[in-house]
């Protein structure tokens, strides 16, 4: 029997060999590698190809088989299969072929030994190539992984120490550019869905196509790859290679920015492990950014608090200074004058009793005046009015004076009477005072509106004007100009009684200040 006859014999049994191999592989316990053959279409096709290549190699140098084995070894090593499992499958195959050879020898007399040893040599050689390539690849994979791990470690360490958002952006841009061997990197940072910063390394402008890819990536929150033809893919495996890529930097429900990378020389492929590392770097970046923003917010809060404390102290000092001045100007001077008059009276007792009576009448008037002044001084320290006549009446009285002094007309929508705990009454009264004084000082409006409504659990206050308005910012501390101090103090006052203050304003559209304060059950009843 010639080699050709043997090959034909084997070919006629090719399907049986594959089936036999398949059956043996099914014996438990089986490895991941067996699983690959049994469970995936690719695995089954691989079995067929392998058997086919072995049979085709009978009687000749099986170059195709060798090249195939080399390719298989690389892929399996990268995919992470174990070499032991691969060898096990090889041994099964080997024993099946041996059985087939024996079967063929019984049917047809031919030089079994030559054919057998040739085929065995091809198989051995194939396996040897596979083994060498596998180990070589494995070594490469390990050293690459080690390199990645080290860079991830170094990166994480420098990253988490940094609290400057811009610097963090710069670091990930540089790192990813070097890692993926790209030419340029870009970063667009977002805050409250607005672009907060655009960076390019090396410095330069961001082309429209890059920017629009980044925009799209921000909208979809997905990594996007653009190839040379300008087609956009979501999966690098589908695009195989790419020219521009854009990836989101995102943490808990928040996208901090989009990183983009560009290669100048046409297209570039990315390995699975490169993408994997990039994602890990991006995760670290997101954490670092989250920290940085938290730090900024904390600092802002602290600054606000410091600012407010200082403001409160100044307010207090100012109040005290004013009080001292009032006492000096009114009471102390009145007392001094009265003291002189009394001394005069004492002298007049003997000298001129008629003049004495006159002086005493005069003195009585001065005492009355001083008493009135001291009463006024007291009530300016605490608006007793609130307790005596109630919030609504006190507000009406205040607004009457305000309108007279400032010529600003106020439309009011107030309930006839309102029952509130004393601290909320004071809070609302002071807020109205401050808000209207802001209207007078800053709004340049001839009218204003005051509205108070109360439900079972809530009291609502609105002060609005149609004045010039200002640029809206979410927190008063972000505002420029004088009135922010007043707003901050108001906010603090409202928050102190568990309420909430919001300001709605735009240049040219007036200002609306809203306060809502929850009322606990029963508190409204006096």
């Amino acid at each position: 029997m010639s080699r050709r006859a043997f090959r034909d014999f084997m070919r006629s049994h090719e399907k049986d060999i594959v089936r036999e191999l398949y059956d043996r592989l099914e014996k438990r316990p089986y490895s991941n590698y067996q699983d690959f053959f049994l469970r995936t279409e690719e695995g089954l096709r691989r079995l067929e190809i392998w058997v086919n290549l072995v049979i085709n190699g009978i009687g000749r140098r099986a170059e195709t088989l060798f090249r195939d084995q080399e390719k298989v070894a690389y892929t399996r090593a990268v995919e992470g299969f174990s070499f032991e499992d691969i060898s096990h499958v090889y041994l099964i195959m080997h024993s099946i072929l041996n059985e087939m050879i024996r079967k063929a020898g019984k049917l047809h007399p031919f030089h079994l030994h030559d054919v057998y040893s040739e085929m065995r040599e091809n198989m051995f050689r194939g396996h040897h190539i596979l083994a060498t390539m596998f180990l070589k690849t494995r070594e490469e994979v390990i050293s690459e992984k080690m390199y990645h791990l080290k860079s991830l470690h170094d990166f994480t360490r420098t990253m988490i120490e940094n609290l400057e958002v811009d610097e963090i952006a710069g670091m990930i841009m540089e790192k990813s550019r070097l890692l993926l061997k790209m030419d340029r990197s870009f970063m667009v940072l977002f805050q409250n869905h607005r672009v907060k910063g655009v960076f390019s390394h090396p410095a330069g402008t961001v082309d429209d196509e890059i920017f629009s890819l980044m925009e799209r990536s921000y909208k979809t929150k997905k990594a996007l790859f653009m190839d040379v033809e300008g087609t956009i893919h979501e999966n690098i495996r589908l695009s195989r290679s790419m020219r521009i890529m854009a990836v989101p930097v995102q943490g808990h429900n928040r996208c901090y920015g989009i990183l983009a990378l560009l290669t100048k020389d046409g297209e570039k492929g990315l390995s699975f492990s490169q993408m994997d590392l990039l994602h890990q770097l991006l995760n670290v970046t997101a954490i670092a950014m989250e920290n940085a923003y938290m730090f900024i917010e904390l600092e802002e809060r602290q600054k606000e608090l410091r600012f407010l404390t200082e403001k409160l102290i100044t307010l207090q000092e100012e109040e005290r200074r004013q009080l001292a001045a009032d006492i000096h100007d009114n009471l102390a001077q009145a007392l001094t004058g009265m003291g002189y008059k009394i001394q005069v009276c004492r002298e007049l007792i003997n000298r001129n009793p008629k003049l004495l009576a006159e002086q005493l009448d005069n003195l009585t008037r001065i005492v009355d005046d001083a008493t009135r002044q001291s009463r006024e001084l007291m009530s300016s320290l605490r608006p007793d009015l609130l307790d005596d006549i109630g919030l609504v009446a006190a507000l009406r009285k205040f607004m009457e004076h305000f309108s007279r002094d400032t010529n600003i007309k106020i439309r009011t929508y107030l309930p006839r009477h309102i029952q509130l705990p004393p601290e909320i009454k004071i809070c609302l009264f002071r807020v109205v005072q401050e808000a209207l004084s802001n209207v007078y000082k800053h709004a340049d409006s001839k009218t204003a509106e005051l509205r108070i409504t109360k439900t079972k659990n809530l009291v609502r206050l609105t002060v609005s004007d149609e004045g010039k308005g200002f640029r809206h910012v979410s927190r008063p501390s972000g505002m420029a100009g004088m009135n922010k101090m007043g707003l901050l103090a108001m906010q603090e006052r409202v928050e102190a009684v568990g309420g909430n203050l919001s300001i709605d304003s735009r240049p040219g559209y007036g200002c609306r200040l809203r306060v809502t304060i929850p009322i606990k059950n029963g508190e409204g009843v006096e």
Partner: protein
Amino acid sequence: MKKTRVMIVDDHVIVQEGLKQLLELEEDIEVVEIAGSGFECIQSLEEKANPDIILMDIKMKDISGIEATKLICKKYPNIKVIMLTIYTDGQYVTDAISAGARGFVTKDVKRDDLIEIIHHVMKDGSFLDPKVTGCIVDHVKKGTKAGQAVKTSYFTYRELEVVKELVAGHKDDEIAERLYLSKHTIRSHIKNIFRKLGVSSRSQAIAKVINLKIVNPE
């Protein structure tokens, strides 16, 4: 016998009145002039008033009593100034003395004492209220230097007029119009004011005169 001519400078009518009545019970004392502020005081001295003694309050609207005293003691060395005030602060006392005041008396002074003090000062004596001596001792002990207010040289009547206008926020041409002077003259006054205060701008000058309590802004 020649009566002692007294001028009262105080911005409270009740005090002015009471003090006048109290002093005029004394045969040899005559209240010849009453002014409601440091500036009014200087103004009436410029015009005609010629008292022997001025009873001067410290804290008043516009020009402070101490600043007015500085000018008076330089320009009218024959007039003797006695500070009559509510304040017992050591700084005020040393400032007043440096400005040239001959006496420092608190407002709760008794009639007999006040009259005696006036006579004493008329005879070239000086008087410090026993209530403030403790404050001065503390003040000197603390090593505080004589008040800042007197480090600057004193202002002339015209300059004080311009200082008041500056604090009120008027521009050069407005000041010129209000004081019936040329813009050129106003500018040279302002230059002198800057030099005396050691400042180089309007806002610095305003800040400094308010800070030094030379002027009490309305």
